[in-house]
């Protein structure tokens, strides 16, 4: 059972050649990593204490995005998928990104140059 099991949606290719078991190992490793990091104040550890918890959030989300990409790319066979199917997924992700960005305007840009610029442009 431990023989390498290649990703085979279409018999003609298995690009990358990463096996399901390798992906599984990486996902477990990333889970252990993200739990371990959650016990550390990343901002202080990196010498940027003013970031504090925000640094933890960024690191936590980056790890989650990595895990997500592995699942989508290998388990969900996005590496072999047709163009239209890739487009549908890409569009859903783009809409999600637009939603999150638009929903976080009031706090994300507060106190930054973007906010000052917007105020100046509006004559406030």
């Amino acid at each position, binding site marked *: 059972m431990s023989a390498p099991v290649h990703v085979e*949606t279409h018999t003609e290719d298995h690009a990358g050649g990463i096996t399901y078991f390798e992906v599984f190992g990486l996902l477990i490793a990333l889970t252990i990593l993200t739990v371990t990091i*959650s016990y550390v104040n990343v901002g202080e550890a990196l010498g940027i204490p003013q970031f504090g918890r925000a640094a933890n959030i960024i690191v936590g*989300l980056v790890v989650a995005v990595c895990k997500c990409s592995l699942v*989508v790319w*290998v*388990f969900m066979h996005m590496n072999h998928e*047709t163009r239209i199917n890739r487009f549908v997924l890409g569009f*859903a992700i783009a*809409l999600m990104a637009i939603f999150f960005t638009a929903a976080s305007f009031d706090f994300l840009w507060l106190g930054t140059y973007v906010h000052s610029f917007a105020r100046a442009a509006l004559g406030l």
Partner: protein
Amino acid sequence: MSDASQHHAILSPAFHKDRRNLRALGMWLFLGSEVMFFTAFFGAYIVVRSAGAASVAMPLERMWGALNTVVLITSSLTMALAVQFSKKGDRAKTGRYLALTFLLACCFLVVKAIEYTHHFMEGNFPSHDIFMGFYFLLTGFHGLHVLGGMVAMGILWWRNRRGDFNEHYNDPIEMAGLYWHFVDLVWIFLFPALYLL
């Protein structure tokens, strides 16, 4: 050879490929709508957490969450293997891995039930505070998706046993696989968002 596999064997490989791709398109559109569904709740959670609820006490036991993450990742692996064996026409192994995926989904819900029981015994109901409200909303809808996946897994296990699938035709198993990996993906984001950050 059953009637179904004789029927599928006489059709051309191009036909099988086209049919599979169209079904996958339907599944990806459905998953796109699912992404939007969770985006709405997740977006609301982000806004609430960012807009001053930073002092929210995280009452969750992160080890339960980590355990469930491992359970769901493992179930994604067994599902991927079930799809792979169904493509090879290995009915026995397909059935075994579908059953394993079902059992792991069961484990996930048992752990979730233990957590919920703890919350309720401590008086942490959805109305306790804004965090618990979002916690029950997000994990509740995710849990319903796990339950839905288990129903699909059960039906597919039975159909696989009946001999509905073979190396030419295994679309339902592959599409259920896509759905199952999506359920795993949602948890991959819920776990850090609710338990760690």
